């Protein structure tokens, strides 16, 4: 349990990226009525940006 929890916490920035940042971006895009290039859906855009950002934060150890 402890080991599984540690593994979960170790990838928390990535999980936060897809679990929270991604839908947050998607909902802000929708609220502001933004047109995304290539017909990409707001949630796909959010997942790309949030997941990517979370992954980078996981690797670098910093969000910015």
């Amino acid at each position, binding site marked *: 349990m402890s080991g599984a*929890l540690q593994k979960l*916490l170790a990838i*928390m*920035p990535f*999980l*936060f990226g897809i*679990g*929270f940042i*991604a*839908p*947050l971006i*998607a*909902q*802000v895009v929708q*609220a502001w009525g933004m047109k995304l290039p290539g017909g990409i859906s707001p949630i796909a855009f959010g997942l790309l940006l949030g997941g990517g950002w979370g992954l980078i*934060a*996981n690797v*670098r*150890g*910093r*969000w910015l």
Partner: protein
Amino acid sequence: MATEESAESLLLRRDIGAPPHAGDRPALPLGPDGLDRYTRRDLRKEELAIARQFIGGRMWPYALAAFGCFAVWLSFFPLAILGVLNLPLAFVLSTVFAVGGYVTSHEAMHSNIGRAGEPRRWLNEAVGQVSTIPIVFPFSMARLMHLEHHYHCNDPERDPDYTDEAPNMWAAWYKTWYNRQPGVDGSIHHYKRILADMGTPAAARALKETVALQLLFMAVLFTMAWTGHAVAAAALWWLPRHIGLSYIRFYLSWAPHHPREGRRGRYENTNVFKSRLGHVLSMGMETHIVHHLYPAIPNHRTRPAYHALKPILAARGVDVSPL
């Protein structure tokens, strides 16, 4: 005539200003503060007599504020989901609650609402428990770390708040954020080291409760976000927590203790400072020195206590010029 002669001989002495001869030394050895032990003892007695006048007092407003604000904050979530909440206003209030919650929990950390064995002990513990939920910092962890801060104030290894030290105000604000980054050896890693050193059941429990509350926080954010309420989750909990933690770290940790290096004495580990935002908005931290000297004096009484203690603090070498 004899007096005139001795005055003349004194004026003609060539060793004035030179290190004193054995016969010129003070009768009692002086400490680094320039005071002898009798003066220090008398000052301490006077200080205690004044401080006792400010210990205790009405503490129910802290309990009322803690439970009231927590209830209002909780109500924001269903109201936001129902779409009947003014989100910008709720965001501002949630941030105020996040910051203010630390003030009420701080009283509970020092058992100022009810000491162990007293009838109101349950209230003290309940206030502590609810107050720090908005900043996702369980009371068990907050209390342990805060008491360690008092025991080892400004010790680089053992003061849990030492990581907040920064050379200036802007660097301090930046560090409040930097220390929360996942890969930085900041606050939480320092806390974990101190908890490991303590090795007590209370330390283990604090760590478990911290993980549990963090996971609950994530679960609420993720659930709200994936059910279409991400903006509300950000406005009610995520952003207020981050802003609140930075604000608390700046005013409660950096401002009253900077510079920390080498300043560990009772009268030198905490500053008196003038806040640009005033006494209330800086959470009463301008007179934080009174809290470090007498933690049983509640937050709202530290300012009058400071003014009563000011001459003694000045005699002790504290720079009281800011206030």
